Structures are given as structure tokens and as C-alpha cells.
């Protein structure tokens, strides 16, 4: 944790200097490059890597940063946790277990369209609490399309609803999505503390989401689909690996609940689950499994940590935070609601990971100035998570659903099957706004609960 580095420096009043200016410029240009990925078509990871190099290089010239400090600033807990979970999922996908779950849901829905959406969406939300949202949607979106085609109904409501509920479910836990992992790791929040604070909020928000989904798509839910005949003896392709994976996940949940008492950071739990699984199922081909890990994404995180580390060490972020402290201290509740909505808007419009990477050290340095930042963490987690639902570019899960539906529309020669960016905004934006209102109300009503400092 970087708080100790910063706390010694934050006491004195800082004035702006050249190092701050240089590091802020590198940060700005890197973020600009990342956010305009769609225009210049240079992969965001490449941009971040270039930015990381530029930050280290300029840091060496101006004396605020160097390769050793860059290595130290990387939050390895985040990287290893993401990598470990990715590997476990890469083992689970080919077993066919998720497919069995999806078809079981389809069968139980009895062809009731709204019930199918709710059951599918809730399952996806539950799975997203433990696994990464993007992965959950990569697994489930093709299954939803397959099932809706078998039922002869439009897959759009279920696809959109599942992506949104996946993003929402992910907010509930420390390991549910990358922004939470980053917050939890930086603020030293335990799995239990996270779930206790965000679980109820997410539950309320999920109910609101399902309600708004019903209103938005009510015409689609009329009538009952004819259920195709499902096979009784279609088995999971690799049941042994599937059930052992579920066992490993169960052990991991227990370990997550007690990771603080065990003195383990979250990555240790993921590593434990993975190691148990690899030993319990000897036939898992490690090389083949590791090929599926999204190294580009892990590299993106490392590069961002290094870029943001530069503005931390130049004390630019401390300087910015210092100006914000009086505002935040004046009215914490307003600050929380502002950060909830600001986080949501940013998240709806641009990639939220760089935003998180820069904001987290700023909040940490406010903490070093003696501000009780606990409620800010919760507001940030909720805002960033819910904002992702507003637009098609708000979350990677949305993009996956969008591109799948476009391919489906093309393959079927039916443009009505495509979820266009406009359609996403018409459906997603009302959901985002409704859920933000619900979250704001919960924040105002239970403010004392969210504002109580966490015992570390």
C-alpha cells in the first residue's frame, strides 16, 4: 500500500513544480491516447505501455521517478488476482458446465419470456459476484442467443438485461470487477466488509433494474414461447473438472470470507483455489490453459499503475487532493453523491480503469490529510459500476453483447436482431439513471453506515 509513502509528504503544504507539470502532462497524454482508441486504432495496452515508458524516462530526467519505484508501485495483488481468476475460468469454460446451467434455466422458465430474462439475469449477476463480468458475459451471451433461437424469441431483452445485471452483480464483492479489486486492494478493504456494505445496495439496485427492464421491454414479454424438447441425457462434457472447479470455488469463497483473519491478500485465495484445482485434476493442460489468459489486459493494468505511479511520486496527485480536501470535508455526504454520479458519468463515457487508477491515490492522499475517506470508496465503487450500464461503451460486457447481436443480425439477415448503440442508450440510460437514484437514496438514508471508518 502506498499510503505510507505519501503520508510523510502530505503534511507540508505543496506548491506546484516542474516535476508535477511534466508527470501530469504524460498522464494526460496517455489517458487521451487510451480514451481515443476508437479513433486512432492503436491498442490501449500499447498506448499505456508507451505512457509508462515515457513516465519512467521523464521521471529519471526530472528526478521524480525511476524503474525501481515503477516496479514497486504496481499493485501485484490486483494483477495476480485477475490472472488467477482468469485461469480458473479458462479451465471451467471447456467443461460445458455453464452450458448445462443455461439450458437448465431455459427449461425451468417454461417458455415464460420475462421469467427467462430474470432467471438468466440473476444467475449471471450471482456468477459475476465471484467471476469477472466480462468473462461471465463471454460465456453466457452466446448461450442466451442459442436458447432464444431455440425458443424462437428475440434475444435482445435477455442479452441486454444479462450484461447490465452482470455489471451490477459485480459491484457487490471485492473480487466482482476490476474497479472493486483496485479499491479493495488500495484501501485494504476485506471481502466481508465489501460485501456487507455493497451487498444490500446491489440487491436493491438489481430489483430496480429488473423493474425498469420489465417496463422497457414489456411488449416483448407478451405471450409464451413454445419450449423445444430438451434432451434428458445430454451430459456435461467434462463433469469431473466442472465439479472440482465448483469445489475449488467453494473453498475460495470460505477463504475470501476469512482472508483477513488468515492474513491473506485476495490474490492468495485465487492462487490457492487454482493450485488445488490443478492438483485435483491432473489432466488439466497448464500450457493450453495459460494460453487463454488475457495477458494484454494484465499488461494494461501494470502499465497504468506505472503511469499513475509517476504522478504519485511527483506529488501531483497529492497536490490536487490537497485542493479537494476542504471541499470534501465541508460536506462529506454531498461529496459522496457527487463522486457517485461523477464516477457513473465517467464510466459511461470512457474506460473507467484509468480513471480509477488516478482517483484511488488521490483519495488515499486525502486520507493521509486526515479525511475519513471510507464513504468515498463506497460511492466510487457504486458509481463506477452503475455508470457502465448507461452506454454501449460503458463496460466491456456491453461491447461483447453488442458485437454478438450485430453478428447474429447479419447471419440471420434480420437487422432487428442487432443491439445498436442507440438502442443501448435508449434502454441502458434509463436503467443507469434509475439505479443511480436508488443508490443515492440509499447513501443518504444509510449515510452513517457507509461513513463509519473501517477497522483495519
Amino acid at each position, binding site marked *: 500500500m502506498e499510503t505510507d509513502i505519501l503520508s510523510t509528504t502530505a503534511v507540508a503544504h505543496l506548491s506546484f513544480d516542474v516535476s508535477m507539470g511534466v508527470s501530469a502532462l504524460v498522464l494526460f497524454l496517455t489517458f487521451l491516447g487510451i480514451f481515443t482508441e476508437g479513433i486512432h486504432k492503436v491498442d490501449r495496452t500499447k498506448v499505456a505501455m508507451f505512457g509508462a515508458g515515457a513516465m519512467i524516462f521523464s521521471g529519471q530526467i526530472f528526478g521524480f521517478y525511476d524503474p525501481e519505484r515503477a516496479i514497486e508501485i504496481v499493485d501485484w495483488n490486483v494483477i495476480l488476482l485477475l490472472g488467477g481468476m482468469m485461469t480458473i475460468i479458462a479451465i471451467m*469454460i*471447456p467443461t*460445458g458446465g455453464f*452450458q448445462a446451467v443455461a439450458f437448465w434455466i431455459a427449461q425451468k422458465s417454461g417458455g415464460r419470456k420475462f421469467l427467462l430474462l430474470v432467471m438468466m439475469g440473476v444467475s449471471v449477476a450471482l456468477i459475476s459476484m465471484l467471476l469477472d463480468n466480462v468473462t461471465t458475459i463471454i460465456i453466457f451471451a*452466446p*448461450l442466451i442467443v442459442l436458447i432464444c*433461437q*431455440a425458443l424462437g424469441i428475440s434475444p435482445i431483452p435477455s442479452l441486454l438485461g444479462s450484461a447490465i445485471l452482470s455489471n451490477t452483480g459485480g459491484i457487490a464483492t471485492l473480487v466482482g470487477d476490476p474497479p472493486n479489486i483496485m479499491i479493495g486492494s488500495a484501501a485494504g478493504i476485506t471481502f466481508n466488509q465489501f460485501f456487507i456494505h455493497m451487498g444490500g445496495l446491489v440487491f436493491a439496485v438489481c430489483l430496480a433494474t429488473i423493474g425498469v427492464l420489465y417496463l422497457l421491454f414489456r411488449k416483448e414479454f407478451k405471450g409464451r414461447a413454445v419450449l*423445444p*424438447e430438451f434432451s434428458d441425457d445430454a451430459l456435461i462434457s467434462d463433469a469431473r473438472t466442472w465439479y472440482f472447479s465448483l469445489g475449488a470455488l467453494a473453498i475460495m469463497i470460505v477463504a475470501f470470507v476469512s482472508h483477513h483473519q488468515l492474513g491473506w491478500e485476495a490474490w492468495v485465495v485465487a492462487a490457492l483455489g487454482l493450485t488445488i484445482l490443478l492438483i485435483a485434476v491432473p489432466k488439466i493442460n497448464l500450457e493450453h490453459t495459460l494460453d487463454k489468459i488475457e495477458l494484454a489486459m494484465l499488461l494494461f493494468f501494470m502499465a497504468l499503475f506505472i503511469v499513475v505511479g509517476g504522478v504519485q511520486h511527483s506529488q501531483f496527485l497529492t497536490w490536487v487532493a490537497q485542493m479537494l480536501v476542504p471541499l470534501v470535508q465541508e460536506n462529506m455526504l454531498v461529496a459522496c453523491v457527487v463522486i457517485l454520479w461523477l464516477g457513473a458519468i465517467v464510466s459511461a463515457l470512457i474506460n473507467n480503469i484509468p480513471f480509477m487508477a488516478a482517483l484511488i491515490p488521490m483519495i488515499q492522499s486525502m486520507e493521509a490529510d486526515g479525511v475519513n475517506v471510507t464513504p468515498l470508496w463506497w460511492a466510487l465503487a457504486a458509481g463506477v459500476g452503475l455508470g457502465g450500464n448507461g452506454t454501449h461503451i460503458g463496460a466491456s460486457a456491453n461491447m461483447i453483447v453488442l458485437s454478438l447481436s450485430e453478428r447474429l443480425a447479419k447471419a440471420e439477415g434480420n437487422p432487428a436482431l442487432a443491439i445498436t448503440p442507440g438502442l443501448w442508450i435508449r434502454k441502458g440510460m434509463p436503467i443507469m439513471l434509475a439505479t443511480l437514484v436508488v443508490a443515492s437514496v440509499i447513501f443518504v438514508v444509510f449515510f452513517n453506515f457507509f461513513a463509519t471508518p473501517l477497522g483495519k
Partner: protein
Amino acid sequence: MPCIEAMTTEIVTVSPEQTVSEAVALMDEHGIRALPVVDAKNNLVGMFGFDPLLRGLLPVSLTIGEHDGLDLRLDYVLHASSGVAQRLSRLMSRPVGEVMSRDLYTVHPETPLWEGVRLLVKYGSPLPVVRTESMFLAGIMTAQTATRAFLHILDLMAEGKRREI
């Protein structure tokens, strides 16, 4: 021996504008499973065959990269054949140009036969033989024509005509 000596020039081709159903009829008539798709100048623009046709019948969910190609099983739903047949009937009226495969694996007339065999094994038969640059279709090399070429080499060796090989 170069590929030009192992190819056949008796080829049935189809244009991108012809319908899938015409192409299927051609393949049936000649007992073949793939057709080079060529434009008016006889330049290769794609390949059409039973494999891409069947791939077009699969649900789109199975053919997206993220799900590891054809990993999703279809045995959960019974009696889906009539739905699949309907997909086929929609495909039959579409132009070949929309359904054909554009990922082309080709050899040149001067490519050594051994390299041609490697590509046949890697990408399957048939392999179009095209002139460099223009993609002018000179012939096709198939598993049969390649094997025949090697048998011919054996004959030549038996006759002691090493130089001609």
C-alpha cells in the same frame, strides 16, 4: 517437381453472383465438394464448398471466436432439424459471394510440390493454384492429383529417368 505438374486444369468454377443452390447443384453433378469462386477474368476471389455451407447452418453463437470455435454442444435441444433445414433454404437463394470463404490458401504454379503437400495437409483439399499478383486461377491441386504426381515420380524412378524428376 513444381505444383503446376501436380494440378488439374479441368476445373468447375462458379461466379460470386450465382446462387448457393446453383453451386450445390454443380458440386452434386460433378461429384466434388468444393468450387473455386472466380470473377469474369478468371481471377480467384473465394472458395465455396460443403464445409462453409454447413458452417453457415450452425447457430452464430458457435462460430464466434471467444467461445473457442465450435465448443458449444447442440445436443441439449432435440428435434431441431426442421429449423436447420429452414436456415439452409434461406442460404440457398443467397449469392455464393456472400457465403464463400475469403480466407484463401493458395500455391503458385512454381511452388515446389512438397510445400504444396504441406498446405494440403494443413488446410485441406483442394488447393487453388494461382498466378502471383493477379490471382489468375491456373488449376487446382487436390489430394488425388498430388498423390498421382508422386506415383508418377515413382514410375519415373523405376524407369531410371532421375533427371526428369
